[in-house]
């Protein structure tokens, strides 16, 4: 087990390194680093000085080493626009994104599992079929368009919910949160729902498939024969077996949810790091772009690692296999 975790860790570090190489090459070889790293307002002499100061006259591998060394120390350059360390800018906007992503994932569990269970236990009922048909939309509709429609219906036509922004926030542990105030929650509802649509469909389908697969199994018959109530059979015995793939998928999807927040944040003008990256790309604020990419890659790999670990905890079979 320990060797396995160790091997997995080394693999993760390797992937992070590979990604830094890709991002580095992307920015420094494909793009013009002088243009990228030096403010466009600089004149010729300033440019020349900056090239030397930034070490752009050094060989590429040396530049990469320096980039990596700075990155390890948490220095990914300064934003041209805000004149602040890029990493700090992202860290400031991270809570807004995280709050949105976590709410979206929670929504997908709260809505997806019950709907999926219903569709799985009564696959031929009208409601079960409608749920399945509806889930196709969750996958295939472009999420930005769904977001626009939500705004059009609930904000413009009905006027029930605010259309953009984070609303009133409250401070907890020195960070601003929207979920602590009523106004903030009202602002969060539409973006979170929009972000979770794809995940709801995914969780729903997984739950349904799991329920259909597990219901005819011997252990369910046995539990019934013991005289357990159907509620206990479904929610304790069957759920335990359905949960494993769902946890894995939700874990893995958390990363894409954070990445996809880029779209939702742009539609609802939610001031998270996704909106920051789009704004930065539009004004070519490359240090912020690099910092965001590094951050999200790191986040991804950490999540993948955690999910793998969690998997072994939840499913004894995986543990046994890795021991053999």
């Amino acid at each position, binding site marked *: 087990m320990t060797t396995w975790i160790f091997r997995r860790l080394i693999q993760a570090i390797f*992937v992070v390194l*590979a990604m830094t190489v890709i*991002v580095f090459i*992307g*920015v420094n070889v*494909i*793009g013009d680093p002088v243009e990228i790293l030096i403010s466009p307002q600089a004149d010729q002499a300033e440019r020349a000085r900056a090239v030397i100061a930034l070490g752009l006259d050094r060989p590429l591998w040396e530049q990469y080493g320096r980039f990596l060394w700075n990155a390890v120390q948490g220095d990914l350059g300064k934003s041209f626009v805000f004149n602040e360390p890029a990493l700090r800018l992202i860290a400031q906007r991270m809570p807004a994104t995280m709050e949105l992503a976590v709410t979206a994932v929670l929504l997908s569990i709260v809505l997806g599992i019950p709907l999926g269970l219903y569709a799985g236990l009564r696959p031929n009922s009208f409601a079960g079929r409608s749920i399945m048909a509806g889930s*196709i939309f969750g996958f*295939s*509709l*472009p*999420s*930005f*368009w769904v977001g*626009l*429609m939500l*705004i*059009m219906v609930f*904000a*413009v036509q009905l006027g029930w919910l605010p*259309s953009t922004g984070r609303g009133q926030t409250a401070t907890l542990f020195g960070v601003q949160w929207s979920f602590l105030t009523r106004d903030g929650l009202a602002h969060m509802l539409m973006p979170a729902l929009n972000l979770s649509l794809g995940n709801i469909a995914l969780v729903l389908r997984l739950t349904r498939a799991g329920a259909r697969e597990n219901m005819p199994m011997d252990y369910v018959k046995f539990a019934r024969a013991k005289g357990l109530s159907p509620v206990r059979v479904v929610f304790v015995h069957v759920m335990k077996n359905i949960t494993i793939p769902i946890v894995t998928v939700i874990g893995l999807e958390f*990363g*894409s949810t954070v*990445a*996809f927040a*880029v*779209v939702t944040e*742009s539609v609802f003008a939610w001031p998270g790091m996704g909106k920051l*990256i*789009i704004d930065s*790309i*539009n004004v070519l604020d490359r240090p912020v*772009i690099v910092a965001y*990419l590094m951050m*999200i*890659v790191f986040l*991804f790999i950490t999540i*993948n690692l955690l999910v793998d670990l969690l998997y072994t905890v939840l499913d004894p079979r995986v543990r046994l296999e890795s021991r053999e």
Partner: protein
Amino acid sequence: MSTTAGIAREETPFRRFTSEFAESPLAVLGLVIVVIVAVLALAAPFITPQNPYDLAQLDIMDGRLAPGSKSMDGLVFWLGTDDQGRDMLSGIIYGLRISLGVGVGSAIIAGVIGSALGLAAAYFGGKVETAIMRLVDLQLSFPAILVALMILAVLGKGVLNVMLALVLVEWARYARTARGAALVERRREYIEAAECLALPRWRLLAFHLLPNCMPPLIVIGTIQIARAITLEATLSFLGLGVPITEPSLGLLIANGYQYMLSGKYWISFYPGIALLVTIIAINLVGDQLRDVLNPRLKR
């Protein structure tokens, strides 16, 4: 088969395929819509009431007219106009052209690259396979939007850059599918027979292995076209995709976004409907293709 059995004309593979496909009315509807959309996109310059990018034909006075209103010179704007006074219907048809072109183009390029790598992985095995499949795993562990974002952040916007991003996002799925299909096929006797004939490797891969791996690739291809169109629209909506001179549906939607809050819904709404109908139609066709081409579901 079709050459040997003149009597069994009823049962050529193609006929069986079409009749099975036609079993689902929804899929047929989807196919009809796909054909209509494709024809509209191809014939755009001949059928649109207005060339939306010929500035001489535009009149800023016609800006933001509601659907059904008439222009100064009597042209009816069935779907309204945008802020520049462009006919939305013409804009949408031209937009479909870009959206479909980018989507189909990137799906085909990604399909060729991905299938080639997938087949090579399955056929050669060993280190080649490990290298290719590791790359596939790595690629697939990152969400499409993130990979596309990375590429466009580095390269900047533009039709070709978007296509490159889409190809890089999509190839891995083809590779995985092609490898899966080829692993099964390569153990078959006809491959052994071809090997005994000492055919060159490329010929064996391209003319013997590939045709037999086609069905799952076609299914994936259909779904991937829909995905590519969606992703392109999303990127263009975010302002990272196609440039303003070549607006796709996503960009049209983005342009109308600011007017939506003031109730001028049509600038965003109708391009959105066009996008939606296209994506859903392609998905319907893809779903049915999957059922028909899946040997496990054969009766």
